[in-house]
């Protein structure tokens, strides 16, 4: 099995907390982007040796910034180049302001099976602080519009925003009938406007937010299956789960990363170089077991420990109450999840 990630680099506005490589859209750029993407899909087809594509993820950027016709062309190109499985999960990340009922139906018709709406918060105050261009009303309406179709519906929520009532935000999105909820603590990345302004997030606030998310969503029938991800039964994101399980994926688009069969990693060089045909150089991941453990520990159900490695480290972390072990399966405890980076670093 293999997965495909498509990087769509366009955004309506640049958010002050975002550290990704994004562009304001221009017609001439979009055409050139789609042309180059078509070429890159051809290259992937040669490397993938006919492996079936089980999941496709259109991320960004803001993929819904593309028109539906452009999205249609993009997905056609994907299907022409690669054998996408008939029951593949196809996710589209969308901005609330881009959603209406008719677009939602079109997306479903284009073969999108999962829509992820960047709600972030249902408080206008919090949204303003986040520098988002939409308001709460728009966000909630967007959820309603997508729910009317048959696709799986995710809401992205950001926590730890000053003045935000996280429990209220979560209750509001749950009430709109979502199937999946990703809750991210606000992270101040270096070289972003937030970092330059000296915005800080208190550790204790983050800790409480993580606990609150699990509590509120758990009570509403969601199962937490990863640090920041919660789903109703049967609605986990297969694509993202693949990352944490150490599956292979191909990445296309200007700044996409791929982790291809044989543990070959490629990261594209950014928009301009990519448009000129530049591609990431392949490097072989030195110790894939380390990476599998590093990402696998994010899954609440845990990860298999390879034979004969790290037993001493695991014993110590179990003694500290940060890991649980059953046979060769290890998983983070509730306390362990909260400090998972330092737990995972043990295995680096």
């Amino acid at each position: 099995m293999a997965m495909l990630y498509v990087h769509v680099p366009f955004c309506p506005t640049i958010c002050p907390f975002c550290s990704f490589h994004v562009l304001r859209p221009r017609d001439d750029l979009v055409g050139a982007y789609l042309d180059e993407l078509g070429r890159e899909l051809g290259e992937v087809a040669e490397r993938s040796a006919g492996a079936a594509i089980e999941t496709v993820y259109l991320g960004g950027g803001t993929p819904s910034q593309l028109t539906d016709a452009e999205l249609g062309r993009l997905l056609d190109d994907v299907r022409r180049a690669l054998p996408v499985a008939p029951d593949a999960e196809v996710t589209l990340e969308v901005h609330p302001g881009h959603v209406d009922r008719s677009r939602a139906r079109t997306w479903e018709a284009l073969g999108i099976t999962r829509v992820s709406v960047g709600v972030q918060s249902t408080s206008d105050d919090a949204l303003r602080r986040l520098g988002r261009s939409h308001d709460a009303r728009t966000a909630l309406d967007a959820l309603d519009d997508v729910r009317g179709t048959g696709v799986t519906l995710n809401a992205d929520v950001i926590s730890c925003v000053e003045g935000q009532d996280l429990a209220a935000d979560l209750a509001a999105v749950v009430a709109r009938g979502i199937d999946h909820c990703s809750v991210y603590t606000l992270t101040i990345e270096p070289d972003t406007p937030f970092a330059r302004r000296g915005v800080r997030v208190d550790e204790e606030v983050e800790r409480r937010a993580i606990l609150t998310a699990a509590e509120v969503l758990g009570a509403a029938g969601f199962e937490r299956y990863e640090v920041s991800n919660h789903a109703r039964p049967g609605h986990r994101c297969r694509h993202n789960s693949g990352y944490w399980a150490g599956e292979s994926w191909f990445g296309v688009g200007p700044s996409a990363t791929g982790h291809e069969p044989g543990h070959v990693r490629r990261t594209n060089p950014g928009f301009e170089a990519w448009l000129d045909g530049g591609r990431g150089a392949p490097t072989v991941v030195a110790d894939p077991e380390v990476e599998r453990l590093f990402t696998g520990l994010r899954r609440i159900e845990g990860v298999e420990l390879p034979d004969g490695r790290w037993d001493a480290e695991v014993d110590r972390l179990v003694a500290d109450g940060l890991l649980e072990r059953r046979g060769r399966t290890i998983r983070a405890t509730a306390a362990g999840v909260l400090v998972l980076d330092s737990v995972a670093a043990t295995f680096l």
Partner: protein
Amino acid sequence: MDLSRIRNIAIIAHIDHGKSTLADRMLELCGAVDPRDMRAQYLDSMDLERERGITIKLQSVRLDYRDHVVNLIDTPGHVDFGYEVSRSLAATEGVILLVDAAQGIQAQTLANCYLAIENDLEIVAALNKIDLPAADPERCCEEIERILGIPADQVLRISAKTGEGVPELLDAVIERIPAPKGDPDAPLQALIFDSHYDQFRGVVSSLRVMNGTLRTDAKLRFMQAAAVHPAEEVGCRLPTPTPFRSLGPGEVGYLIAGIKDVGEARSGETVTEASNPATEPLQGYQEPKPMVFCGLYPIDGDEYPRLRESLDKLRLNDSSFTFAPETSGALGFGFRCGFLGLLHMEIVRERLEREFDLSIIATAPSVAYRVTVRGGREVTVDNPSELPPMGEIEQIAEPYLQTTILAPSDYTGAILDLCQSKRGEMIKLEYLSPERIELGYKLPLAEVVIDFFDQLKSRTQGYASLDYEPAGYQPGNLVKVDILLAGDPVDAFSSVVHRDRSEEYGRAMTEKLRELIPRQQFDVPIQAALGGRVIARSTVKAYRKDVTAKLYGGDISRKKKLLEKQKQGKKRMKAIGRVEVPQEAFISALRLD
């Protein structure tokens, strides 16, 4: 060589008063260095010396000036190396006393000048930096006349930077400093005043011939080391080392004799000819005595053999530090090392890291205590963790220093406060002028090695200067304070302090460690204990939250790299039990301010 045409001199000056710059000008003036090859601080050959602006190893250079040979012997600019200063002065007939015209006489000026007077050396005084706007030559001349008895009208005024007055200074050297005396036909007596190790030639010694003639190929007897070596090469630094067939009385040069260990050709050694030996060695030989001790441990235990090798190699070049294996419960296998002073300790540590690419932990500096245990037996303890149990101790005596502090009188109060707080005993308080004061204090060495000099500088805005010499041992009411991390005592943090200060010390230490030890996955209690009694405590709180919010495809390698980098940083830390302790905690924890 006609003795009347030789002048042997050293420049004595307080640190930063321009000694190396003056040497540079003299080299240029005498045409010793091609202008294209000139660089600042020409005689300071180690990178460390140039960076720190101090001379560590001695160099001598032979200059031609007005039909005379002037041998200029460089002296180290730091009080740690005071013994070497005295050796190099013994090789001269006179000194240039260099005083910064803006700063006036400083503690080391005074100490070195007294040394020159004791050795009956002629002193040519010069005020340097007269081109500076802050220069006050009138005041400084007056000070020199009053304090040192050198008539103001004999004090030259120069700028080593611009070269102004340097020819006149050299003229004065020729005119005022006496020529050396010596009997060319007497048995050979040559004084070694410095040795360093050259990886190609072995030990290269700087020496001054007192009597007789030093010839290439002669069989030489090193009188104190009781060893015989053939003279492979004899020569002079012009400043490029140049072989000479022989050196006669009064001459200064270098000797290579196939020696592999500088310990066999130490400063103060007398060299004579094996076939016709002198009956007596020259006076003044002393074994260098370490004053300050610390443990040196490799961060990575596997580096222990390499640390030993590196210490061996370094000692070839610097016989004044000592080392012996020791074991620490917290740090594993390492070495107890002894140094002439704190600067010397820092230099050795830095050279180990730089020249031998080692990551090492230096434990807090300690002094050597003389401990009398029940029954009257006396033991010397230079590692606080090895102190016998308090119940068995009758008395602990600690080494003292006699210090001299010179400062503007405005700072008298601040200096008295500092010395009181360091358990000092005042011996002398004298106004050198209405604006300047000289203070004499007897201070426990242990108090001085921690942060005394830093404190003195900061409390006097850098204006105070310090010189010191050992002043024997005195008993004190001393106790050992242990530090416990997560309940376990860490021997490397044990310290001997005065009982009255123990609680204050314990509080400061636990608080400082709380700041220095990074947060871990669990709470880390830090306690200070006297005997079994906890006298202070603090806690490094565990992480409340340490998990990345988003980790998808492209984030994985980025995040992994970031965590790997953090982990690299941790390699600079030492795991003590379960607690990761950064290197600097071992030494900077003691700099309590």
